[in-house]
């Protein structure tokens, strides 16, 4: 399983991640900060998650595996 982490202190709320991988990422409506969706699939699209990490201007996403 691809391991994804969001550094909430680094996240600037750009929201690029949820365009690349909408099944994995979302933004809190109140704070605008990204979070991992609780119901995200165990086997996510690795390419999409890597694209989300690469697209993050704040470099707040780490992908392992």
């Amino acid at each position: 399983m691809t391991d994804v982490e969001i550094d909430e202190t680094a996240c600037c709320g750009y929201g690029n991640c949820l365009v690349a991988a909408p099944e994995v990422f979302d933004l809190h409506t109140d704070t605008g900060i990204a979070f991992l969706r609780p119901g995200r699939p165990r086997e996510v699209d690795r390419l999409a998650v890597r694209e989300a990490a690469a697209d993050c201007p704040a470099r707040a996403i780490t992908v392992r595996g």
Partner: protein
Amino acid sequence: MSTVADPTGFGFDPYDPELTEPAVWNRYRAAQNLGGAVRAPDRDGFWLVTSYDEVRTALRDPATFSSASGHRIPTDGSRRAIPIDFDPPLHTAYRALMAEALSPARVRALRPFLAEVVTRLVDDFAAAGGGDFVSAVALPLPLQVLTELVGFSGETVAQFRTLTEELWSRYVDVDPAESHRRLWELMRAELADHRARPRDDFLGSLLHAEIEGRPIREDEQVGILATFAVAGHETTMNAAATLAWLLVEHPEAQAALRADPTRARAFVEEMLRHRSPAQNFARRTTCPARVGGTAVAEGDAVLLSLAAANRDPERFPDPDRFDPDRDARGHLAFGWGIHQCIGAPLARTELVLLLEELAARPPLCAAGPPVWSSLQGGNHLGLTHLPLLFEEET
């Protein structure tokens, strides 16, 4: 303004004074109807890119779509702004230095100050019985933030608007060099003042900063400060005034916001999508590329229209409709990728605070006709005059 005439191309002069509200949106739509990328013969020639997917793809590929020739048409590489007109690795170093002033932690710490400025400006506006929202609220908001954020003096920021307007007016048909020189002189004076009287602010930290392991040069300090001075006020000013204008234009949306102020964030995002304040950014190709199914030669200029992309019906259904209930996320108003607006977290915070403050007052209504600018510097669309007032509470 020329009309569509192939094979010579699609007339689009970014400095055309006729490209204003609402004509500019029709022009983008006309380009979109011809394809993802159309050839514009104006200002040495360039490809106008208006499709969401094509604009985002180009923004994600800085190796192919270089910024080193500048983000304005024509891309002649003169008067490069820091950091936007640089490619990695130098861009990365400049951006990291500037990001210190605009980090989420810094924005969170600034929040009480921002809320206080917003409340005071709107208080004064209400007490005066309304007036021109641009000069009374939309402009002073970012200027006051710049004094706190960067360490500019009040006297210095008071000159930013006039200098910027003069700068853009020259881009239409005069060499803007003299306006740039005046802006840079003002930045040098601030640096000298901080050297003489050291202060613990961003400007002070810039005096001793390092770029790629060497001391920063004065022209780099001046360039960084000039970006804060121009990009740091104009975009926010235009966004703030556009928000207020939308409230008046869409009374039902204003009523919904007043009933539920938590809608402010979504309202701001839809404004950014629907009326992107910074509309067009140029690149130059470093190799042959395909854009919108069209072959683009190495060294060609491309103008990526964020504003048009945000109205691409393939990405946003019924795109010309302002709908604060839609999911506008993924819009390109702040750009995308390595050059994505470094001030976005600050701007979003300021704009949400402003909208919440306005929603907590009596209904806002028009007090006269609004005046829109043309694309300033080929890029910035906003209101130059917006007479508004709060309705009397009954």
